[in-house]
């Protein structure tokens, strides 16, 4: 559009104006550039073009114009002049390329997305495979005794679990092998889906649409195939959605596939309907499936962020894979039991308030670990059960069952259950999200198993060692007592206190403190006492397991302690929070391993107690809190071997952590790539859109509703605007197209819509300040390239200006400047010419330019100077906006509701009311003897460069003699131009509002009688310009406006004569 860089050149001549000063002005609006801006400028957040963007934009802008009381006239492009068409042909090529690029970007985007999905899917596999040998080696020594012990305690469980594990293994292999294939296949499918795209290029439209039809059918068969189901859910959804969308977009494209036979049409329609329905169903099912799997992930995210202020960055792991260690769950579950019948709500609370830590430990590695011990088996099973509660609230019923079982266990032994449920592994459920159906089966089995194991567990848990527990409990009380007040969530731990208290008869005084906490606790104590009895009874049952469980019980309490300490410290010194959590994290990671060790030490029962208490003290030390749990340290025997067990495990974890980090990195880069591609796609798609006739017609329809007159220029809208301006039918033009100057506009308002203020340019200012007139501007356009010519390569406006300054002509036609330049260039580039020594630098540079044959083109010059325009001087009429119709229109097209419409139209209707008032409020501007010449010296802005400055200076010097010549021989020059122009004179297109056939600008001038005001202006113009501008004498006689103008001109004149 226009001449590149011309605006920058003209910038010093512009001046900002306030929009309210334009009230009542008649302004021509170059609709073509508007529509271009709107169609390309309006975009959604991804950068894609919006539907109805042009209408929306025009609507907004028209509202703005009308609310400021401006009377707009819209000027649309008519046909495209041949010259422009030629120039544009080159550009269209570029556009086509852009379309293709957009296409490619889309494809890349999709394949990238799929890769990302698959990558996510494969993630559990890779680290596993690396881990497997390690685990094998690290646990080789200990595995056999473990297994034996496990076997003795619960062989059935182990077997079952191994089955599951085998299945997992199988799946893993299968998945790994199929991953690559998947990528390929998905890529293909996507490309198929993706080839569908709307485009505007007329020639390829049909072809594409036909291709689309086939693709659609193909895709359809693709999605019905079984292979499709194997794809990851997200990918499935993506593809389906894409299909649905593209189907919507391209309904025109299907004209081609219509059956020729009329009879077949209904069946064709039915067929399509069925297909559409199938697609819809498929999408729904996929969405449902996805929804199920995503709920828990979202829940966890929320939990992490809201409840515990965890930064998910600190808790390492991907969003949908990894471990969740639920630390508070035991407490909550106790609570649950207390309010047992309470229902799903408590359940939700339960899962919501769970302290979750997303661990990066890999699913399978963990299962492998667990597999080796019974206790881990139990934990795992339990975990799988409880993991379901956050994952799917729909499964509440089954969860309740689980919950009841757990509660049963809790009744028997609080500590026991807490240990087991301390570690909640979400991994199995997470596994589902790898979208393999095999695994779902596996998971089902797991669930079944967990049910049965729970039953197994419950009897084996009724064990508490009072001496060990009581001492730690009393201390625990202290901790809780001091933290509970600060922490609101601390109330949950306190509920545990009475229970522990009742078990340990010593801590009555502590109990008093706790009693203050709430009456509910008192009620609980009663229950707890009963439980205590039961516990005691059961205590006698099996002493062996007792020991084991006592270990875990203390452990559980310790964990709770940690939780409390963390929460209290979080309250007191929030800064340490993350450090705490991190440490906590590490500790909890280790817990399963501790369990392992506990199992190992099972034969040595006494030691086991030590084992368990030691880690507890360890925790506390690690936390670095001055917690008063010193007694735990006292009771716990300081064993040396405690660290031994932990070290290898930890290294194991760091390994996993590194792998996860790698994965995260890959993910990040993929994400970045994706966003990049997305924006690229948006950009290319926007470049690819173009203005169709339909858009113009729709816009005109909208303008009709607003009662705004519009004309369709025979060719270029800008030239028509320029004519209206010159003919005083308008008070200026609103356009951002610098072509307006080339067609002879006198007043142009730029940046009408934008963040910057409106800039007002007058040709008089430009002439005065920059010594540029219309002819020179045309020459600049010819040199640097405009709509009608591509110009000389390497020449911008600045160089063009230099050329103009370098080759001044005293000739009449400015065109001769270029001829002269050409002659010089031809001469200087003759092989046998000797280059003069003193050739200025500029000329040296100009010599290097490559001029195309046929430059300068007289035709281009004439096309600018004598564009084909509609020269009717019929005045315009403005109707009243049909507000009701506009509202209906807006609700139809934009989906606006009443309120939105009203808010948009309020200023318009307000202004309308003002206009209805017979009295018009003019501004003082026309009354005041404004010292306008002050304003005519626009704020001096920094000129671009020294080069530019020099060129301007030179131009100024040159222009003085030219000025004199121009004044004397002005009329003859006009004639000359005219004689040359006839072959170019284009045929007129009759625009919709029929107007009398008129002649060209120049003819016009000769025919009209000059009015008084006209002559004044002419004089003024001549004083300023090097040569005349073709001003027709179509002046409105004796209006207020012209009076004001006369005054201004007089001042102008006097000022200039003084000079």
């Amino acid at each position: 559009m226009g001449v590149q860089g011309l605006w920058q050149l003209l910038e010093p001549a512009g001046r900002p104006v306030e929009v309210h000063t334009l009230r009542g002005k008649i302004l021509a609006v170059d609709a073509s550039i508007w529509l271009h801006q709107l169609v390309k400028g309006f975009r959604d957040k991804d950068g894609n073009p919006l539907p109805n963007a042009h209408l929306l934009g025009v609507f907004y802008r028209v509202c703005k114009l009308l609310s400021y009381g401006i009377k707009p006239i819209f000027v649309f492009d008519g046909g495209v002049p041949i010259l422009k068409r030629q120039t544009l042909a080159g550009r269209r090529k570029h556009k086509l390329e852009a379309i293709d690029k957009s296409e490619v970007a889309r494809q890349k985007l999709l394949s990238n997305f799929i890769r990302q999905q698959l990558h996510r899917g494969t993630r559990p596999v890779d680290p596993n495979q690396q881990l497997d040998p390690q685990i094998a080696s690290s646990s080789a020594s200990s595995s056999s005794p473990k297994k034996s012990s496990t076997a003795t305690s619960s062989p059935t469980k182990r077997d079952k679990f191994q089955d599951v594990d085998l299945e997992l293994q199988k799946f893993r292999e299968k998945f790994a092998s199929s991953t690559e294939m998947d990528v390929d296949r998905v890529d293909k499918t996507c490309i198929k889906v993706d080839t569908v795209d709307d485009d505007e290029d007329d020639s390829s439209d049909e072809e594409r649409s036909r291709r689309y039809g086939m693709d659609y059918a193909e895709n359809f068969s693709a999605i019905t195939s079984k292979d499709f189901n194997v794809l990851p859910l997200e990918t499935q959804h993506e593809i389906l959605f894409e299909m649905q969308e593209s189907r919507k977009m391209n309904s025109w494209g299907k004209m081609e596939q219509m059956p020729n036979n009329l009879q077949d049409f209904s069946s064709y329609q039915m067929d399509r309907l069925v297909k559409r329905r199938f697609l819809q169903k498929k999408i729904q099912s996929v969405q449902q499936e996805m929804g199920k799997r995503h709920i828990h992930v979202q829940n966890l995210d929320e939990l992490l962020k809201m409840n515990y202020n965890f930064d998910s960055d600190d808790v390492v792991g991907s969003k949908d894979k990894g471990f969740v260690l639920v630390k508070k769950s035991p407490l909550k579950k106790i609570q649950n039991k207390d309010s047992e019948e309470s229902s799903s709500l408590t359940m939700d609370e339960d899962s919501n308030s769970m302290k979750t830590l997303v661990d990066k430990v890999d699913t399978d590695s963990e299962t492998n670990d667990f597999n080796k011990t019974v206790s881990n088996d139990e934990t795992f099973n339990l975990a799988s059960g409880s993991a379901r509660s956050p994952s799917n609230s729909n499964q509440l019923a089954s969860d309740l069952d689980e919950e009841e079982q757990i509660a049963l266990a809790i009744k028997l032994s609080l500590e026991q259950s807490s240990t087991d449920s301390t570690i909640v592994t979400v991994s199995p459920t997470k596994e589902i999200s790898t979208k393999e159906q095999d695994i779902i089966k596996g998971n089902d089995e797991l669930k079944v198993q967990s049910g049965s194991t729970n039953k197994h567990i419950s009897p084996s848990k009724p064990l508490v060692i009072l001496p060990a527990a009581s001492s730690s409990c009393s201390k625990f009380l202290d901790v809780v007592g001091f933290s509970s007040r600060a922490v609101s969530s601390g109330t949950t731990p306190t509920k545990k206190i009475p229970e522990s208290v009742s078990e340990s008869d010593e801590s009555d005084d502590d109990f008093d403190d706790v009693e203050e906490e709430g009456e509910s606790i008192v009620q609980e104590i009663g229950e707890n006492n009963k439980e205590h009895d039961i516990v005691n009874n059961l205590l006698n049952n099996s002493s062996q397991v007792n020991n084991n469980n006592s270990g875990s019980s203390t452990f559980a309490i310790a964990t709770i302690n940690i939780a409390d300490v963390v929460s209290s410290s979080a309250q007191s010194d929030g800064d340490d929070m993350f450090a705490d959590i991190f440490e906590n994290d590490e500790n909890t990671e280790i817990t399963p391993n501790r369990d392992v060790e506990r199992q190992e030490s099972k034969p040595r029962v006494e030691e086991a107690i030590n084992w368990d208490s030691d880690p507890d003290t360890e925790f506390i030390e690690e936390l670095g809190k001055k917690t008063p749990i010193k007694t735990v340290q006292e009771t716990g025997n300081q064993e040396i071997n405690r660290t031994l067990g932990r070290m290898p495990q930890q290294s194991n974890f760091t390994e996993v952590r590194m792998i996860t980090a790698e994965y995260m990195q890959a993910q990040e880069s993929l994400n970045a790539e994706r966003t990049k591609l997305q924006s690229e796609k948006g950009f290319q798609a926007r470049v690819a859109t173009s203005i169709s006739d339909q858009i113009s017609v729709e816009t005109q329809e909208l303008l009709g509703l607003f009662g705004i007159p519009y004309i369709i220029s025979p060719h270029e809208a800008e030239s028509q605007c320029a004519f209206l301006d010159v003919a005083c039918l308008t008070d200026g033009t609103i356009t951002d197209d610098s072509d307006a100057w080339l067609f002879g506009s006198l007043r142009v308002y730029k940046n009408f819509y934008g963040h910057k203020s409106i800039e007002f340019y007058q040709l008089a200012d430009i002439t005065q300040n920059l010594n540029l007139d219309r002819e020179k501007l045309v020459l600049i356009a010819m040199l640097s390239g405009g709509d009608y010519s591509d110009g000389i390569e390497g020449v911008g406006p600045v160089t063009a200006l230099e050329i103009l300054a370098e080759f001044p002509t005293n000739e009449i036609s400015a065109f001769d400047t270029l001829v002269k330049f050409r002659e010089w260039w031809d001469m200087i580039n003759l092989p046998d010419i000797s280059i003069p020594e003193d050739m200025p630098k500029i000329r040296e540079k100009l010599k290097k330019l490559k001029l195309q044959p046929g430059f300068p083109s007289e035709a281009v010059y004439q096309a600018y100077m004598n564009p084909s325009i509609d020269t009717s001087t019929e005045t315009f009429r403005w109707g009243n906006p049909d507000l009701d119709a506009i509202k209906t229109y807006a609700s139809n097209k934009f989906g606006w509701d009443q309120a939105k419409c009203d808010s948009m139209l309020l200023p318009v209707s307000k202004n309308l009311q003002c206009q209805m008032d017979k009295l018009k409020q003019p501004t003082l501007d026309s009354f005041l003897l404004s010292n306008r010449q002050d304003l005519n010296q626009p704020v001096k802005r920094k000129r671009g460069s020294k080069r530019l400055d020099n060129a301007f200076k030179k131009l100024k010097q040159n222009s003085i003699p030219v000025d004199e010549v121009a004044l004397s021989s002005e009329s003859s020059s006009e004639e000359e131009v005219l004689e040359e122009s006839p072959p170019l004179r284009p045929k007129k297109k009759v625009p919709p509002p029929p107007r009398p056939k008129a002649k060209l600008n120049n003819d016009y001038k000769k025919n009209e009688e000059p009015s008084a005001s006209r002559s004044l202006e002419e004089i003024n113009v001549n004083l300023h310009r090097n040569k005349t501008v073709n001003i027709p004498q179509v002046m409105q006689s004796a209006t207020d406006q012209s009076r004001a103008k006369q005054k201004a001109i007089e001042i102008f004149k006097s000022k200039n004569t003084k000079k």
Partner: protein
Amino acid sequence: MFEAKLQQAGTLKKILDAIKELLTEATFDCTDSGIQLQAMDNSHVSLVSLNLRADGFETYRCDRNVSMGMNLTSLGKILKCCSADDVVTMKAQDAADIVTFVFEASNQERVSDFDMKLMNLDQEHLGIPETDYACVVKMPSAEFARVIRDLSQFGESITFSCSKAGVKFSSTGDIGTGNVKVAQSSSVDSKDATTIELQEPVTLTFASRYLGLFAKASGLSERVQLSMSPEVPLVVEFKINDIGYVRYYLAPKIEDDDGN
């Protein structure tokens, strides 16, 4: 260096009250001869012209011309800090970006000073053409304010019809029509007299909103002078006792005859 001392801060307060609703910011041009302010309102329908002569101040010193762009809301905040009978001194350095106001209480016990940041305002200097007005009405400003207030209730415009006998103000609106006739007083000397100097009868219509804003200056002076000619802006002038004047110019409404 610019320094001007005014005996009555209340005058300044009233001046501000008279212009602050038309203008949000304005440039005070301080020259050797006094302080001038000239600005159009946002919609360029009215113009305020304030002139405070140097000799009206108790002391006045202006070495070099200073243009002080002020935000009138901020100025209002500062002037709230003084009482009407304080002595106020305005000070500014040459090419300074702040102006200082010093308020001294009449009992000499309290002196406060405030600095206000100045703004750089784009200023259009508009020449107001000298016109011989066809009709000049002088009347008590309270009477003028009342007429405007009463008639503003009726419609958005008020028509001034001047004849030898008197001035008729009329307004028509949704609720009906209101007319107020003010006759020329018989005793010309009286302070409350309404006098009309008439070359030819004039009928002009003005926006009542602006007239209402002008009427806020009636506290400045007991008399108001309305100057009218066909098709030129109305001038409403309030003299500020012995120091200068504030003038309002208002473009008359015109018949919209093109039917647009």
